[in-house]
């Protein structure tokens, strides 16, 4: 259970003492019998299988459903740390939303010369259909996941902004349910902020973004690509918890200028669609004409202001890693304040000088595709073979605009439970942020992803990562 000098250990001081946020947990932990904990560990998996929290794996047998491994040691954040984080997240998310509005209107930020035009003019996620249009309530990014990493006692960095369709919130909720079912006594000892009202907050936040034509009680529906989608469980789970309908494209059509769903009593209008379908599949009349996942004509209804689509089409621009590299400028431009949460230093290979630096230092850097996600298509220099590095060198030389690079971060560690007891592993954190016209609402907690392999820095579930319950302590 000793910390490593190279990384910030969130539980242990360098001298082996327990940090304050973890004292309650450690007290409890030291009283537990190892055999009992091992049994509980196995129990957790059964519990996840039972409730069906699985994800489908793309490209594998349709029936294949996998569990994301769960580790039962919570990741703990103190009340003071959380307060600080939320201020930084609020600032960043409100800047993101203002940036989206500006990009699709006057583009002041480009006129002011703060970011180059090429960033969006050759970005596939930028939608000309959104130009000059303001979504109901002026909200673009209804649900945002901000990926944070920690490197020191007071050092949090934003690694990525997920403004398109951040997923994983069902794990935040079910991880907590599982922990409370397994260790009720722990929650009696340690005061932890609740996360369970996230679905209610989500429903409320979405309803607050309803278009003017909605009545007093807006109808909200979750749009899923269907039962074979990798995140179907989450779509069904959220719809169920919000008391919303779970619709597929085939349930919807445009009736009398509204988007309506086929109910057992006929077509009934929908006011807000929380869509888990990508932009390009949303409307076969506007985008991909082969799409059967979307609703023909929905974009016309949208532009007439008669439905809310969350998140707004075209917000994927913000997920771009080249845009990310300009976030400090973006935050400052729209809020007039210095960013409270720093970016990770980022080299844009599109700039000649940076590109040269990147190519000279590939073995030390993490290289990412500008439009990539899910941990695919990236190079982790220190862990890569010579051959892999040379492959990436060719790719970068070939298409420099397509890549950015960052220093390999010394991600903090949090212990996981192993056969031999606690052992530190690297973690990140994705808090979930809800945006409505008059409020930015951050649920105290989030999804902690953990690299289960010793020494590994990749936390993505598609690459052998697991999850943990994330605790924000009460004051």
């Amino acid at each position, binding site marked *: 259970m000793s910390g490593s000098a190279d990384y910030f250990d969130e539980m242990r001081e360098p001298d082996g003492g327990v940090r304050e946020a973890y004292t309650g947990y450690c007290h409890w932990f030291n009283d537990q019998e190892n055999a009992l904990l091992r049994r509980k560990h196995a129990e957790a998996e059964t519990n996840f*299988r*039972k*409730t*069906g929290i699985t994800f489908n794996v793309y490209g594998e047998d349709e*029936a294949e459903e996998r569990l994301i491994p769960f580790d039962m040691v919570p990741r703990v954040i103190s009340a003071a740390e959380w307060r600080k984080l939320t201020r930084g997240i609020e600032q960043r998310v409100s800047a993101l939303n203002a940036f989206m509005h500006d990009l699709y209107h006057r583009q002041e930020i480009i006129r002011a010369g703060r970011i180059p035009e090429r960033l969006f003019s050759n970005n596939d996620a930028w939608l000309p259909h959104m130009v000059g249009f303001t979504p109901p309530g002026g909200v673009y990014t209804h649900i945002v996941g901000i990926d944070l990493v920690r490197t020191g006692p007071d050092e949090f960095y934003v690694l990525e902004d997920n403004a398109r369709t951040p997923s994983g919130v069902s794990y935040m909720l079910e991880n907590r349910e599982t922990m409370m079912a397994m260790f009720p006594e722990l929650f009696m000892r340690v005061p932890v902020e609740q996360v369970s009202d996230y679905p209610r907050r989500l429903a409320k936040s979405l309803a607050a973004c309803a278009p003017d034509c909605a009545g007093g009680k807006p109808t909200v529906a979750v749009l899923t690509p269907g*039962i074979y989608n990798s995140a*179907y469980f989450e779509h*069904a*789970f959220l*719809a*169920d918890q919000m008391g*919303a*309908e*779970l*619709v*597929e494209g*085939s*349930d919807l059509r445009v009736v009398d200028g509204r988007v309506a*769903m*086929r*109910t*057992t*009593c*006929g077509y009934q209008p929908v006011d807000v669609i929380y869509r888990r379908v990508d932009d390009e599949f949303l409307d076969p009349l506007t985008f991909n004409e082969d799409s059967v996942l979307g609703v023909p004509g929905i974009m016309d209804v949208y532009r007439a202001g008669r439905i809310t689509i969350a998140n707004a089409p075209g917000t994927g621009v913000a997920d771009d890693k080249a845009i990310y590299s300009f976030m400090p400028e973006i935050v400052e431009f729209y809020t007039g304040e210095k960013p409270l949460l720093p970016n990770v230093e980022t080299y844009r290979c599109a700039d000649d000088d940076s590109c040269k630096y990147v190519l000279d230092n590939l073995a030390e850097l993490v290289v990412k595709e500008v439009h990539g996600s899910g941990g695919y298509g990236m190079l982790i220099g220190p862990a890569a073979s010579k051959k892999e590095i040379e492959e990436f060198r060719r790719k970068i030389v070939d298409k420099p605009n397509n890549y950015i690079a960052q220093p390999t971060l010394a991600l903090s560690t949090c212990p996981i439970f192993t056969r031999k007891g606690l052992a530190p592993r690297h973690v990140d954190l994705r808090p979930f942020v809800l945006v409505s016209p008059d409020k930015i609402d951050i649920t105290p907690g989030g999804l902690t992803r953990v690299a289960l392999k010793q020494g590994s820095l990749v936390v993505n579930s598609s690459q052998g990562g697991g999850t943990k319950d994330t605790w924000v302590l009460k004051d």
Partner: protein
Amino acid sequence: MLGRTANGLFWMFRYLERAENTARLLDAGLRMALTRDLVTAEEEWRSVMSTAGQRTGYEAKHATYTGMQAWNFILRDKDNASSILAMFGQVRQNARLARNAISGELWEAINENWLAIKDQLAKPVGENRVLETVATIRRAGTLAHGALEGSMLRDESYHFAQAGTFIERGDSIARILDIKYYLLLPSLSYVGSSLDTGQWDQVLRSVSGDRAYRWLNAGQIDARGICKFLILDDAFPRSLAFCHSELRANLAALARLHGREGESNALMREADTRIADLTIEDVFDQGLHEFLVDFMASNAAIGNAIATDYRFLA
């Protein structure tokens, strides 16, 4: 509620009922095979396969009837689209589709049992495991119905689930009677003559009615009595009369909730006029086979009308 979700609920419970009924059939066949010589046992399995409606599929694959082959075909054969494994897969698939219309308890009852059944059927099932496997499947049905009764709101979702259950159950009982009657009584003149009680016992077992029947008839087994029990006794939850009145009640509730009647309610009323005040003598006069065929056709028509009335499909 969405039409597609209603469809999911309806078929979730139809498949559940079908899987459960097939398991009962298998249970009865097993018991029968245990008490017979090999030749008769072979005949027995052929009859089970016919009743399950899987004879063509089975004979396309196997030239002979042995117990092990037969139950593995019904339980888990990959080439058998109506295997219990495939049916239960459909139950769970539909439960996932209708996930936000069913309670967490019902979902877990289905999901946990699916995991257990999938596990038990992962490998060929030997003599030592077959009864246990059949019991698991039957228990799955019992648990799901318990969760439905105990935890679901009595709104349209409940009534769609129930409608699916009773359409399927009625169909299954009529099918068993129709096939068994023909196998057991090659000519109608046999009615009333002494019977192979073992065979009739099996019919009762395959609808879990053996105990109830004995209780009501003091052990007296005859074709007329059994037909009367399975067709007209509305106190027995697996009789045609019972299925009919449950279906009627659930369709009436749906019409009430929607504020209007549809084709399904009209067809139900038509069926009512045919069944009201019916005696077993009327049934035999009309011809048992004809009566059962009529019943199945009307039952199927009501099922289709439900799908149209409530916009199951786009």
